[in-house]
């Protein structure tokens, strides 16, 4: 048999099937193998909405998208080259994401009468048979049948046998992309070390899938995707929520502060709680509170006691925390508030991504209550950004809002993880002595306008803090009109002062002056970056900057903005950063919005760039 073998620069595969089909595992395995081989990668799972729906239905489709290549990869990619579908619903839900001419690998048994009905497809409209897939290359495999026959003497029950059918698909793809099975076999050996039957069955099917590729008569193409030229170093694969959890632990270790997490579960933030709960050996205290208010309040208590206090949630939970965030602004107590944003308003689209809580981060509480806001731009960037959030919180005695989102949180990418010794130190010193003659002045400020942190247990520094307006320096309750105005300005000035201690805004790519700047924040990074590569390839005069520090802005941001004729701001919301930029810098920045619970594709941004450039 001969199969053509092409060398490709990048490939996007989407694995889709029923929630029970193990597509997340299949995707992860392929990803790890690709990463270990040296490809650059980026992945994004696409979970079904929050209720597990009956098998076979559209609502139950679970997907996993992988983008890998021999060039740098910045996002899970737009439309896919290969679509693996375990049933009719998976095809129906994902077909429009497949490139014309792309490959469909279909489990034929997933297109039987029952599955068609569950996917709301009339039997005569079976897409595998009605010619509608003409524009694609369709590889039909009766995975179920082959798995069953391969294992009919394994002694396992049908249910257990069927559970390994994803390994067939995995093996087949390994064959298609010329990969070895080693990594997955090692994984299976660890996973099923105590269940040799299952282990053997899985390995057998994995190999069966591989051999199926080798032996079938189908003219299946094979591909080679060479390793990427990435910065030398040791890499691992990491998801955003995982990176966030690690960044917090790192900050705790480097600052010498005990980490306290007060949290109430909510999608898509819960995994940070789950991750941190595992790391008790780092002395992490995780407190699953009765609600979001108790979550942040317990964190305030812990921070008052001298812990690195963190609370995690998503939009609706953050709304509930607003009053207590205001308290921590007033107390000037260090705290990291993490919002893994999801589709809103209200319960909205709980499993989908969105950037629509920026305004809430800025203004979602009563009174003038400024706090720093900082956003992560990719899964691995969550580590650095949350670490930075912790540093700002404790060094400036302030709550900090860290914005992530469902896309960054669940996406994965290779990470050249740092050595702990390379991490920037976080300096915290608890107050030990009186600072006002024979008195302790809890609101006496240092050159950063930060106040001292005197924790209970420190003799002589007994003091009271609270949410009522306080007198400058003494912190006593004060209703004095001038003092109030002074303190409102002071709290604002203190947050703005942080700009002196953060890096200048950089241009990610493109010229430092020119026709157009694409200004992003948070998780739009990868899509914009990829679009810019294409735009530069076409010779367009366009640059890209991605803001990490949203409050305060880097000091040079205005200067940068004024260097371009136009500024385009893509956001996964109805236009939020754009309002702040327009207000602050008085430039007619152009909003570009997508509010579909899904990231921008690079193509969408590229097209918008072309359009903006072409307009006078």
């Amino acid at each position, binding site marked *: 048999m001969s199969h053509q073998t092409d060398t490709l620069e990048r490939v996007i595969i989407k694995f889709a099937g029923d929630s029970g089909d193990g597509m997340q595992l299949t995707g992860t395995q392929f990803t*790890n193998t690709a990463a*270990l*081989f*040296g490809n650059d990668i980026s992945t994004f799972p696409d979970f079904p909405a929050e209720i597990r729906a009956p098998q076979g239905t559209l609502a139950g489709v679970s997907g996993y998208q992988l983008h890998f290549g021999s060039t740098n990869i910045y996002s899970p990619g737009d439309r896919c080259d290969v679509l693996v579908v375990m049933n009719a619903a998976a095809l129906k839900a994902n077909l429009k994401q497949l490139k014309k001419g792309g490959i469909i690998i279909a489990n034929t048994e997933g297109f039987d009468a029952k599955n068609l009905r569950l996917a709301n497809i009339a039997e005569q409209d079976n897409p595998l048979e009605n010619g509608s897939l003409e524009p694609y290359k369709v590889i039909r495999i009766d995975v179920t049948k082959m798995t069953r026959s391969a294992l009919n003497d394994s002694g396992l029950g049908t249910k257990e046998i069927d559970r390994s059918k994803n390994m067939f698909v995995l093996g087949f793809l390994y064959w298609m992309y010329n990969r070895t099975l080693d990594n997955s076999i090692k994984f299976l050996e660890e996973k099923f070390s105590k269940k040799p039957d299952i282990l053997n069955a899985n390995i057998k099917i994995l190999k069966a899938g591989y051999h199926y590729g080798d032996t079938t008569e189908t003219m299946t193409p094979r591909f080679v995707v060479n390793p990427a030229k*990435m910065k*030398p*170093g*040791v*890499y*691992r694969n*990491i998801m955003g929520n995982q990176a966030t959890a*690690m960044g917090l*632990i*790192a900050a705790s*270790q480097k600052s010498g502060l*005990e980490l306290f997490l*007060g949290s109430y579960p909510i999608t898509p933030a819960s995994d940070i709680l789950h991750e941190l709960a595992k*790391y*008790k*050996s*780092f*002395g*992490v*205290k995780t*407190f699953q*509170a*009765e609600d979001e*208010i*108790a979550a942040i*309040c*317990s*964190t*305030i*208590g*812990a*921070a*008052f*006691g*001298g*812990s690195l*206090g963190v609370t995690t949630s998503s939009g609706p939970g953050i709304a509930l925390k607003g009053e*207590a965030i205001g*308290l921590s602004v007033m*107390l000037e107590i260090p705290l990291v508030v993490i919002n893994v944003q999801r589709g809103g308003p209200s319960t909205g689209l709980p499993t989908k991504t969105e950037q629509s809580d920026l305004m809430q981060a800025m203004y979602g509480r009563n009174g003038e209550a400024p706090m720093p806001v900082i956003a992560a731009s990719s899964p691995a960037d969550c580590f650095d950004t949350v670490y930075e959030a912790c540093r700002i919180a404790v060094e400036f005695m302030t709550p900090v809002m860290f914005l992530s989102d469902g896309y960054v949180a669940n996406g994965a990418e290779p990470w050249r*993880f*740092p*050595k702990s010794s390379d991490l920037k130190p976080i300096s915290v010193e608890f107050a030990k002595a009186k600072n006002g003659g024979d008195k302790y002045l809890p609101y006496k400020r240092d050159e950063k306008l930060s106040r001292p942190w005197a924790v*209970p*247990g*420190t*003799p002589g*520094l*007994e*003091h*009271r*803090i*609270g*949410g*009522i307006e306080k007198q400058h320096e003494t912190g*006593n309750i004060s209703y004095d009109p001038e003092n109030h105005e002074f303190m409102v300005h002071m709290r604002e000035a203190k947050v703005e002062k942080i700009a002196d201690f953060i890096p200048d805004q950089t241009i990610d790519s493109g010229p430092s002056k020119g026709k157009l700047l694409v200004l992003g924040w948070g998780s739009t990074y990868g899509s914009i970056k990829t679009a810019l590569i294409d735009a530069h390839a076409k010779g367009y005069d366009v640059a890209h900057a991605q803001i990490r520090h949203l409050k305060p802005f880097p000091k040079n941001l205005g200067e940068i903005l004024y260097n371009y004729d136009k500024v385009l701001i893509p956001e996964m919301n109805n236009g939020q950063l754009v309002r702040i930029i327009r207000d602050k810098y008085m430039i007619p920045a152009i909003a570009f919005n997508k509010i579909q619970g899904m990231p921008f594709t690079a193509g969408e941004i590229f097209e918008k760039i072309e359009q903006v450039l072409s307009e006078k």
Partner: protein
Amino acid sequence: MSTVEPNPSMTTFTSKELVTDQDVRWCPGCGDYSILKQVQTVMPELGIPRENIVFVSGIGCSSRFPYYMETFGMHSIHGRATAIASGLKAARPDLSVWIVSGDGDSMSIGGNHFIHLLRRNFDVNLLVFNNEIYGLTKGQYSPTSEEGKVTKSTPFGSVDHPFNPSALALGADSTFVSRSMDRDPVHLKEILRRAHKHKGTSFVEIYQNCNVFNDGAFEIFTDKETKKIETLFVEHGKPLVFGQNGEKGIKLDGFKPVVVDMASHSANDLWIHDETDRLKASMLSRFFDNPRKGGEHLPRPFGVFYVEDRPCYEDGMKTQIESIITSKGSGDLDKLLRGRDVWEIQ
């Protein structure tokens, strides 16, 4: 609370040293003054270094309390002192944490954290100044105000059935349920000592007169003339006796408590208070007749109704961490960052 072991080398302090430089701003005649006084009196006896004491409060007249205690303190937001104290105690089991709250603060807006604090049994002391009114906001009825109460927000009388705080606490699996009053300094001090001693959340309901918006709410229990016949001070192991000269007792007729004349009964016939008996505590909590309605009724009990020895949340949390560290060793950050699967690009 007994986690905080007396520190032999500590600098002892006097009650006077607990007074801050802030003017006390309660209305003249407010019951809060007496409570403040008793707390300041008892504190130095407890053997806790002053710097290890923290008072956390919510919002309300009562919640101004921390400003008047020269200890660490936080005057937080309405209803959340219990949640803040939970985090503080979880993070710092070495501290002696006292929560001061009002009936509205703890049982209205703070109701959820209240019941969760009790079930989790953090080793903290929860003092609820129950004046059956919202004092700070100038006189609306609270969840402990009696039905029919005429207040600013209920000019025609409230139609709300009030909570029975002790019953609610018992229902939430509180491990220490007690009641005292502003006007009985000796009793209040004793209950404060008991609360401190108890390892677990010590719920102390303190009847407190708001002489501006709900004057006389508890007069019948505090007034010399009526106090003796309307109140019942319970003590562990002692029979339930009350009256001008202890002339009345309470015995159980099946499950029904009845008032008997001590002239014709001996102490042995009576209900002997057993503070470890949850069921009996439950019955005591239901001695909740409104005496102003007159007629036959049971006296209102004061004292420690229930005590249970149950692990504290912060200890469980700490022990779990310690045992993991003991068995697995302290976390290694570099190992964590590296994870399981890595690859190298040359």
